[in-house]
């Protein structure tokens, strides 16, 4: 296995660091490990090595500065209140929320009711996908009359969905 830094010498130092539940691995040769200060475990941050100097500080700072463009809510606000700012916040803070939801609930995917407009959209999508497959098959089989009929049907469904 080659050294991750110089990519030439054989790696002899293998490091694994777990930061906030995420495992990061790096493999180094003797010379590079010394250069990066790996022999001094207290002064070494794996993230620095992987992302360039100063990255670790940036990541630490980052959670607080993440801000929802719709409502202006920040991660710091969430820490304070335990509530989110608006529905768009779920997308903005999705990374941090993922693990939290997993611990809170039975699953991480909604399987219950959905609004009618969503159901219609989804059904429409599934139907279009099936028709497009049929269309390709028809073209491949050189059944052009059938292909034209399918194409018309697809256009009709698409225009209906838009209205």
């Amino acid at each position, binding site marked *: 296995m080659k050294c991750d830094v110089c990519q030439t010498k054989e790696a002899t130092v293998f490091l694994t660091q777990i930061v906030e539940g995420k495992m990061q691995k790096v493999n180094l040769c003797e010379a590079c490990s010394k250069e990066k200060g790996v022999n001094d475990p207290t002064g070494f941050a794996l993230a620095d090595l992987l992302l360039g100097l100063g990255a670790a500080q940036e990541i630490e700072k980052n959670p607080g500065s993440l801000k929802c463009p719709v409502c202006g*809510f920040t991660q710091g606000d969430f820490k304070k209140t*335990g509530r*989110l700012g*608006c*529905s768009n916040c779920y997308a903005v803070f999705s990374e941090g929320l993922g693990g939290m*939801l997993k611990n809170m*609930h039975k699953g991480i995917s909604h399987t219950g009711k959905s609004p009618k407009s969503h159901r219609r959209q989804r059904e429409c999508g599934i139907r279009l996908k099936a028709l497009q497959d049929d269309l390709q098959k028809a073209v491949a089989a050189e059944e052009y009359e059938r292909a034209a009929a399918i194409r018309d049907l697809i256009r009709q469904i698409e225009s209906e969905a838009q209205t």
Partner: protein
Amino acid sequence: MKFSRIIASSGEWLSGDGPNRNIVVSSRVRLARNLRDKAFPGWAKKAERLEVMGRVKEAVERLPEMAESYSENLEALSPLEKQILVERHLISREHAAKGVGSAVITNTQQSLSVMINEEDHLRMQAICCGLQLDKVFAMIDRVDSELEETLDFAFDPELGYLTACPTNVGTGMRASAMLHLPGLVMNDQMGKIINSVNKIGLAVRGLHGEGTEAMGNLFQVSNQTTLGETEEEIIGRLNRVIEQILEHEHNARALLAQRKAVTLHDQIGRAYGLLSHAYSMSSKEALNLLSTIKLGVDLGVFPDSLRFPVDVLFIETQPAHLQKDAGTQKLTIEDRDTLRAAMIRAKLSEVPRPDIARLKAATPEPTEPSQDE
């Protein structure tokens, strides 16, 4: 519709009938919904809250279910009126603390109520008596479907309905039943029940108080999780657990009648004696004694006609309801205790003394679930 008209009659869930009515006081399902890309009430500025309230209120008032309803902005309600709505379970304590930009709408039967701008833009609930979570869910589900015709709800295909608090995301549904469990409390079994129910993602809470110390032996069982299961699966799980708790309660009652008959007779007799003769009574004492009377009715010691008056007393002896009857005079705690005692004495004066002889006849062997509903 005026506040006084709503308050003049008790809610349908209190006076009606339903399966397992003896032990299951009420079944309730609430749904949390929000408008897309509008700040949640806790984060929204006043102008945005007012805008959301205007849109939601109009949509709710137009529902056929709300043809005869009471609708009011929270700032127009006095603290006393808010407290009465809390005691009737029509709004939450948190909602009562809100003012400008929040509103409440309830139908005349008080079976359907909507809180606007509580923690979420909409919190709608349906409530009825006895164990019928499926029926209650169907009621509120229909209201939700009607509302989505005019309101654009925040929904994500992966996460479901998006709510202010991540604990409600997904279905946004909290289904709960209020259970009267004096047998399990007297047998010291409530701790065990609470622990085992908590382990399977459901919660048991005392209605007025924490943990096993519930006033009036009233407990609320509800789902904790809202994501990863369908509404029907959640309610099914809840139903199965409630059926089991009911069986345990029936068993506990049978056990008490068989092995601790003297204690049981004594408790019922004392409750009757105190309630019939006391001249001052705290809310806590009243709830606990009324719970014992309610148990007495279930066991046949008191006539069945006493059931509804006792259930009404559970609500009517709460502080805000007592103050409402007193008019403009501001009651002190002592005044309320006196008034409460008088109200209960008057109700019990027509009730015959407990007929303990009927207790044995009404009680089956333990381990066999009672068939007394």
